[in-house]
């Protein structure tokens, strides 16, 4: 394989690359050996500590699956609530009236500038003080509130960028046949923008899934991450094993979502029927990196 950055490799370059590969392998092997030694010194590699995940389903049914379920519930709820909210604010930012456009812009920029964790802590105290939500439900409410406030403002930007990405001729043609502004938006622009936005929305789902873990670590929300400490104390301090399994589940889940997003993008780009306007998964500044994810 060659790229524009380096020439096709001759015999000397090939020898040099083999040398680099060997050096890199040695360094990686040394690091791996050190990790292995440390782990086995502390007894973290004992089969006893890994056994619960591979034989018997107790660890899965007691700790992991309920946690994963809560993570998915919180993520799905946040997405479902944030999407319409984001659409409203995204469209409001495109309004012709300054008294709608400016406040919507201020609100969106404000919630984008604040860490999700701050919003979640605020939500938790808010529900405790001003509502009669039971203390068992409060963490879920707080997590969803924080995620909705933040992600609605990110989705608003995605919606705005999606509408702006459509060719100008669409608006002009709609006006030419006498549609009103609302009609242009609802029957011409939005339906096309939704397809253009799909990849970006799916990859925002990755950010949401990752951010639910904040609730598990700090708000006592019983999500997948929160399953780690009871699990590792029950199975005899198998911290490394528990973290590995939980991290792998997160990676697999999010990798599936990411791959789905880029598959969608490729498919929409090559489609003949659309206007060809597609927002790539990370179209809006920092979307992809913005969650704690950020």
């Amino acid at each position, binding site marked *: 394989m060659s790229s524009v*950055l380096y020439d096709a490799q001759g015999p000397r370059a090939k020898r040099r690359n083999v040398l680099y590969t060997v050096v890199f392998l040695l360094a*990686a092997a040394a690091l791996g050996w050190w990790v292995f030694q440390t782990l086995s010194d502390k007894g973290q590699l004992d089969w006893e500590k890994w056994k619960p995940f591979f034989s018997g389903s107790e660890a899965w049914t007691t700790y992991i699956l309920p946690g994963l379920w809560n993570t998915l519930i919180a993520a799905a709820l946040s997405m479902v609530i944030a999407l319409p909210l984001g659409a409203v604010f995204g469209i409001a930012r495109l309004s012709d009236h300054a008294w709608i456009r400016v406040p919507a812009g201020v609100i969106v920029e404000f919630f984008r500038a604040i*860490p999700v*964790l*701050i919003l979640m802590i605020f939500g938790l*105290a808010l529900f405790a003080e001003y509502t009669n939500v039971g203390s068992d439900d409060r963490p879920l409410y707080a997590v969803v509130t924080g995620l909705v406030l933040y992600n609605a403002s990110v989705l608003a930007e995605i919606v705005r960028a999606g509408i702006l990405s459509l060719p100008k001729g669409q608006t002009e043609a709609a006006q030419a046949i006498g549609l009103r502004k609302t009609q242009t938006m609802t029957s011409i622009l939005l339906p096309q923008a939704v397809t253009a936005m799909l990849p970006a929305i799916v990859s925002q789902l990755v950010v949401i899934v990752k951010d639910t*873990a904040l609730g598990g670590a700090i708000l006592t929300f019983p999500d997948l991450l929160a399953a780690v400490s009871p699990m590792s104390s029950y199975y005899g301090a198998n911290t490394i094993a528990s973290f590995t399994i939980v991290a792998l589940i997160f990676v697999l889940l999010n*990798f599936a979502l990411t791959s789905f997003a880029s598959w969608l993008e490729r498919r929409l780009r090559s489609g003949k029927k659309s206007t060809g306007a597609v927002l790539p998964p990370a179209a809006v500044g920092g979307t992809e990196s913005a969650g*704690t994810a*950020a």
Partner: protein
Amino acid sequence: MFDFLEGYDLLGAFWVTVQLTLLSAAGSLVWGTVLAAMRVGPVPLMRGFGTAYVNFVRNIPLTVIILFTSLGLFQALSISLGGQRFETINFRLAVLGLVAYTAAFVCEAIRSGINTVPVGQAEAARALGLNFTQVLTLVVLPQAFRAVVGPLTNVLIALTKNTTVAAAIGVAEAALLMKEMIENEAQLLLISAVFAFGFVCLTLPTGLILGWVGKKVAVKR
């Protein structure tokens, strides 16, 4: 009206946030650039490592990484990064976690910057007989960095907000202080407003200043 602030080191907490941000930013810029160089380099094994690292780390919640540094690295494996006191150890672990995580995003930003450099630049450099390291460090990266000030600013702003996750392992930064204050004082809205204002003060100027810098240094094409 603001007497509830008495007895709390608000500025100190935000100073810890700033320190976390700056140290992690410096670390992840270096590690991210190295990763990006690996991903575009001629050695297949390094390319594979870079790709695997980025795809793996990007898909783990930062919270999992940060908690792992404390519960996994420190408590289970006794890796303390040379710190003696509990606060120092947690601070260093948090920086380590933030660097490991943010570097993946820095790497992707720089790689997209490398793609904006016209092909002719690298071809001309190769025609002069420069090798891969020279092409990258003398010709491509200097132009790429000018193009990625904008994307890197977004990563930096996200990093500023992400430092709050360090509260999960007890680093005394802004979010932890906010949690403590809300539990002790009956001023929920005011306290939240103060902390929200603090973060707006940190992130908004960063965006504005670096946005201006980005326009200033961008290569006209």
